[in-house]
């Protein structure tokens, strides 16, 4: 008799989702689905607002990565004004995005996924959380909090507040970085570097400890997409989109923001509020692609900073030239933190930052514009249309987590096939399924532009819809 196991909601992710695992008559996994169960409707209620307000409005989509929305939106706004923003504004925006990558990646690794790595996937779920991590390894937990704090403080120095700074605006930024703030950031950099290097060391041991998981957590062929700089190096704010296949062959390159719709299509499924973007030329669902830390590392030639480039060589030695295992998202995330810190250090010495020209002034010069930035979780696309006065008439937001939707579903199915046997529900198995999702660090608040709470409710349901078993934690 075929059955369905439901994990609802999935824990230690940003947002609210459930997972259904379908078993066939033999008790083998036949399919699995990652359902996103929330809806907020930002794209609708932004209509009618002046586009100048969009960075601050869309930043409210998420409390973890408001900066990503702020920047993608401000870039789309630059396009409506049809301006090149002042160099200092461009560099300050970059610094804020790098700080955002540091703080969000630190949250993902230390707070959300750390408990799995340090305490074990089969450990007691009551303590398999950040508090358990603090009890088991207080120094590691504390260092994670400190690293996140570093990123948040850089954001605060720039934007005046850690969360939802309304600082990037169409045309540039509202304020510069005072000398004393620059010095304060400089003084905290060494600690951030040392925490990151230690975390990368831990990650390398986890790859050996969790060899089985590394091999089965979403290891499959897919396309990868991300921004790269003109010279092919790692990019997070400028540059243009590149798509590579599982062999590393470049399928698309130098795709500017305004052309995104030529390569990305969006499908919907009745069982999830999260859309399913796909690579248009390959159709749905064959055009599955991944975005985020792993994709950015797979699409770029190199990091362009010495320490991260050294780590990139080892990362590729362990994972392959084009890495297919989603478990490596964690590793890629840490190497990205290292590269981001190096770039912040470099920016701090940039004389352009002292300029007082921070904001280009212009009216409505284009009625349609697209802004893309790399959010911690992957490429973030804001597409606006406005009327002649600048009131929004249409919004399309393509969020990183949405773009990983097909891959997350594939990951869930793969892990379930490897670890689920029969119709009982071993807790550690369920946690592995969730951990597979956590590798992508999904932000469902962003992706559906929705918010939710986290807990775990697992249901085993027979083909007639009858509930056979249930585990709640």
């Amino acid at each position: 008799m075929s059955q369905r196991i439901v994990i609802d909601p999935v824990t230690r992710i940003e947002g609210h989702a459930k997972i259904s695992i379908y078993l066939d008559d033999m008790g083998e996994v036949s399919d699995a689905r990652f359902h996103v169960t929330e809806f907020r409707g930002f794209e609708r209620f932004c209509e009618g607002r002046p586009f100048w307000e969009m960075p601050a409005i869309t930043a409210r989509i998420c409390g973890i990565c408001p900066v990503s929305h702020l920047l993608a939106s401000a870039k789309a706004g630059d396009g409506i004004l049809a301006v090149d923003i002042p160099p200092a504004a461009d560099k300050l925006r970059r610094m804020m995005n790098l700080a955002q990558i540091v703080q969000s990646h630190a949250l993902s690794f230390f707070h959300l996924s750390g408990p799995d790595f340090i305490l074990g996937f089969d450990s007691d779920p009551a303590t398999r959380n950040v508090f358990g991590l603090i009890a088991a390894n207080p120094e590691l937990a504390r260092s994670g909090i400190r690293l996140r704090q570093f990123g948040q403080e850089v954001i605060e120095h720039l934007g005046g507040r850690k969360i939802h700074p309304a600082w990037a605006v169409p045309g540039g930024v509202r304020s510069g970085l005072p000398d004393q703030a620059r010095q304060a950031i400089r003084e905290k950099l060494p600690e951030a570097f040392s925490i990151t290097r230690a975390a990368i060391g831990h990650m390398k041991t986890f790859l050996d400890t969790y060899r089985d998981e590394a091999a089965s957590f979403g290891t499959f062929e897919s396309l990868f997409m991300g921004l790269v700089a003109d010279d092919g190096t790692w990019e997070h704010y400028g540059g243009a989109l590149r798509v590579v296949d599982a062999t590393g062959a470049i399928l698309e390159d130098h795709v500017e923001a305004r052309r995104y719709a030529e390569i990305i299509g969006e499908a919907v499924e009745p069982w999830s509020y999260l859309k399913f973007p796909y690579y248009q030329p390959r159709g749905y669902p064959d055009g599955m692609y991944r975005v985020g830390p792993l994709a950015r590392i797979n699409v770029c030639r190199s990091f362009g900073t010495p320490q991260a480039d050294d780590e990139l060589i080892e990362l590729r030695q362990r994972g392959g030239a084009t890495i297919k295992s989603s478990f490596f998202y964690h590793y890629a995330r840490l190497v990205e933190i290292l590269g981001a810190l190096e770039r912040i250090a470099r920016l701090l010495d940039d004389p352009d930052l002292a300029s007082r020209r921070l904001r280009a002034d212009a009216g409505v010069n284009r009625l349609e514009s697209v802004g893309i930035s790399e959010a911690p979780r992957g490429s973030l696309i804001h597409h606006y249309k406005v009327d002649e006065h600048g009131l929004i008439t249409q919004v399309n937001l393509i969020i990183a987590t949405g773009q990983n939707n097909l891959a997350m579903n594939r990951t869930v199915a793969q892990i379930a096939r490897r670890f689920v046997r029969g119709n009982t529900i071993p807790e550690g198995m369920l946690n592995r399924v969730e951990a597979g999702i956590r590798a992508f660090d999904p932000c469902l608040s962003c992706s559906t532009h929705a918010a939710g709470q986290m807990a775990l409710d697992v249901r085993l349901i027979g083909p007639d819809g009858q509930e056979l078993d249930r585990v709640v934690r």
Partner: protein
Amino acid sequence: MAAKTLLINGTMVSAREGETILEAARDAGVKIPTLCHLDGLSDVGACRLCLVEVGGRLRPACTTTVSEGMDVHTHTDALKAYRRQIIELLFAERGHVCAVCVASGHCELQDMAVTLGMDHVRYAYLAPTCSVDISHERFGLDHNRCILCSRCVRACDEVEGVHTWDIAGRGTSARVITDMNQPWGESETCTACGKCLLACPTGALFKRGATVAEMEHAPARIAMIVESRRVRG
């Protein structure tokens, strides 16, 4: 001018004849909350925040003149409750979203809510779909944030002297309008002087291109303009 003697909160106060209770209270150091009142403009008693008890009856302090022997109470428990209710009703009537408002941090409505201890709204939000007009070259109007205080109407009429602004409709359908209810950018009378922006207590009127928390009004400048004109004769 004859002096009048009255009681404000039990204290004997002397006031000039023709003065309002609001002015007499202010001279006596008693601060009565207001929103539609703006120094330099005439008073209309629109917002009802300044209601006081006079001999047990409710009177707007901004439009009630003092009289001999008046017994005024400005901060009774009932009045405090009414004032909070008024602010809650203002929030419930339109789409006031401080988090993404151009005037956040510089808004008299927001400040008043904090001052009066409004930590939540007990009424159902009407959540109307109000339009935004940014057809003007320099300024914008968001009806979602308008509280119909009419300060813009009076500043335009009494200080600039062109009367571009007025109010059309009644009740919750009332809206500030320019000229014959046409887009602001098409107004033939507007001189783009910006006095309406100086006077606006919320984010309803703003500089075009303003982003969140960026719109600072300067209502005190209305009184400065009026006073300097008076001095020059």
